């Protein structure tokens, strides 16, 4: 999935209008972000897109950018598994 698709998924999970997140936000400053948001994001990434976030590093993410890097999503489309 592409970077913008990933960000749109995050918008949905947080109940934010599509296009809100830009990718540089701090996670704990996001509106509606709580412990379940990360769980939802990982689950969506896995079931829908075959993107598997590695065991190490998930709970260490503190910004949206960290998550994008961990998921290895980039500006160009990444082939789904």
């Amino acid at each position: 999935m592409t970077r913008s698709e990933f960000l749109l998924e995050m918008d949905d999970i947080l109940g934010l209008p599509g296009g809100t997140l830009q990718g540089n936000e701090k996670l704990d400053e996001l509106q509606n972000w709580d412990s379940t948001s990360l769980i939802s994001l990982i689950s969506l990434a896995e079931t829908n897109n075959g993107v598997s976030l590695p065991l190490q590093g998930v709970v260490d993410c503190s910004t949206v950018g960290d998550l994008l890097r961990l998921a290895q999503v980039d500006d160009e489309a990444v082939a789904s598994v």
Partner: protein
Amino acid sequence: MKTDAENSNEVRSAATVKLPTTLPEILRKREALKKELQQQENLLPVRIAMLGGSTTSELRKMLELFLLADGIQPAFYESGYNRYRDDVLFESPELWEFKPDIVFFHTTWRNVSQFPELLEDEARVEQRVEAEMARFTGVWEKVQSELGALILQNNFDLPNLRLLGNLEAVQSFGRVNFLMRLNAEFAHYARSHSHLLISDIHYLAAEMGLDNWAGSHYWYNFHMAISPAATLALARNLAGMVQAVYGRSRKCLVLDLDNTLWGGVIGDDGVQNLLLGRDHPLGEAYLDFQHYVKDLKRRGILLAVCSKNEAENAREGFLHPDSILKLDDFSAFKANWNAKPENIREIAAELNIGLDSMVFVDDNPAERALVSDQLPEVAVPDIGADVAGYAKAIDRERYFELTKLVADDLSRSDFYSSNATRAAAEASFADYGEFLSSLDMSAEIGPFMPVYLERITQLINKTNQFNLTTRRYTSAEVQSMAGDPGWVTLYGRLADCFGDNGLVSVIAGRVEDKILEVDLWLMSCRVFKREMEFAMFDALVERCQALGIHKIVGVFVPSKKNAIVSGFYASLGFQSAGSKDNGETRWEYAVPQCYTPKNRYILRSASALMAVANA
């Protein structure tokens, strides 16, 4: 008088929001759906304490969504991580102040404190079983005695590794065998304690497969004992149980015929060419679906047909030699060319049930969409296009969840067939009093008894029209009313020459200073216009006389459905004692020394049980 069917459209503007069916869609839309669902009217507030043996945050969100979609507004207490025992044993002040209606224990196999050692003898393993049970019963008993809440308790799932391979299930020291022993003990406890219900995660895990049930990354990252997909299944399971606890499970399955109950279109193919029977794969699948539907009827679900067909053709289908279902299995039968939503409304009116009690099953997606759109209270599962999946599509949704199976449930269908006979008899009498007399009615009226607690709770939570206060209680609360000397309770069963109507009326009130204030007075719409309310009032007055109660106070709390009883207390001879701005009215009745019974047509049977209760 409006029917239950018409009224229910006003009350449950609920289910206009349908939940998505897949996990990704639910995760994406959860926040938006929650906001929409919270706008619904008449949500029933329920307080749920989630006591976890692992992380509960995701489960709470899922459960909240499913409960809201079912018309329930939950308030939650969540224990600290793995504090499910400590919060109870050390009486956490927040939990105690929260006063939960329901306490849910989210435990899994990871919470078993001790597994047997290899090669331990059976006696020692048995001691471990008892010790583990004592850990749980200690907590359950404290919840019951101090919080009085209903308990939902997970049984045990299985780990997805088998150290001893197949011996795990066989040897008493094997983990699998040990967990199955504990599950048997949990079931035994639940059978003898009606305030505790088991959430069968053992089954849920088997249904989705252990590898899908437990997600290892979710455990290591978040200490979630179950994956998000498992959380979805568990939330759906629990929501079904909560519906059942409040007597809101659905009662009636409405079925299409062609390519739903048999393969083929009977109007075109004729009965002899229908696919039904074991000599053809599709035929066998339809047969098995008929078996499933018949089994539902046996356990108390009403069946109705709604088919676009000539009535004669439709009926003929049930003459097929392999047909498991027969015409008299159906409590209502609509085969015509009218639109299905209209037919379903008529079925609801005929059976005097709410649209929100019904499930509609049809292989045709266009028909499903039409009914779903025009009758949002009716549940319309997407059964798909493959008959082999129909039963599962219905079963998975937990529409007909039970907390207990009672004898009244099994004869529900019979009641509805005998009602048609009653209606025919009524039409043949010029004088209504003569008709009532001809019914040879008899009633059994007495204080709440344990054997009737489930049915009493069901009535309290389901009855909307003849309901003076529309107060709702869990079975745990009803049980405590029954045992409380400060309460006067009455149930009423009614039978007549056509059959037994079962337990149809409930009265309960608090006594203070020799004054009885009626908290609950309700009666099933099954027995309207039979003067059963007079028989109940006679019994209530007699009880008050016996207890030296000199005044009965009645309160009418208006709801959208109970306008028919706004003048009920006046009709009994109560005096008005004031009213409030919200329409609530208060009534008083001075219990006379000599009382003339109002009931004229019902014989009150003095059963041995009643005699004991009144002593």
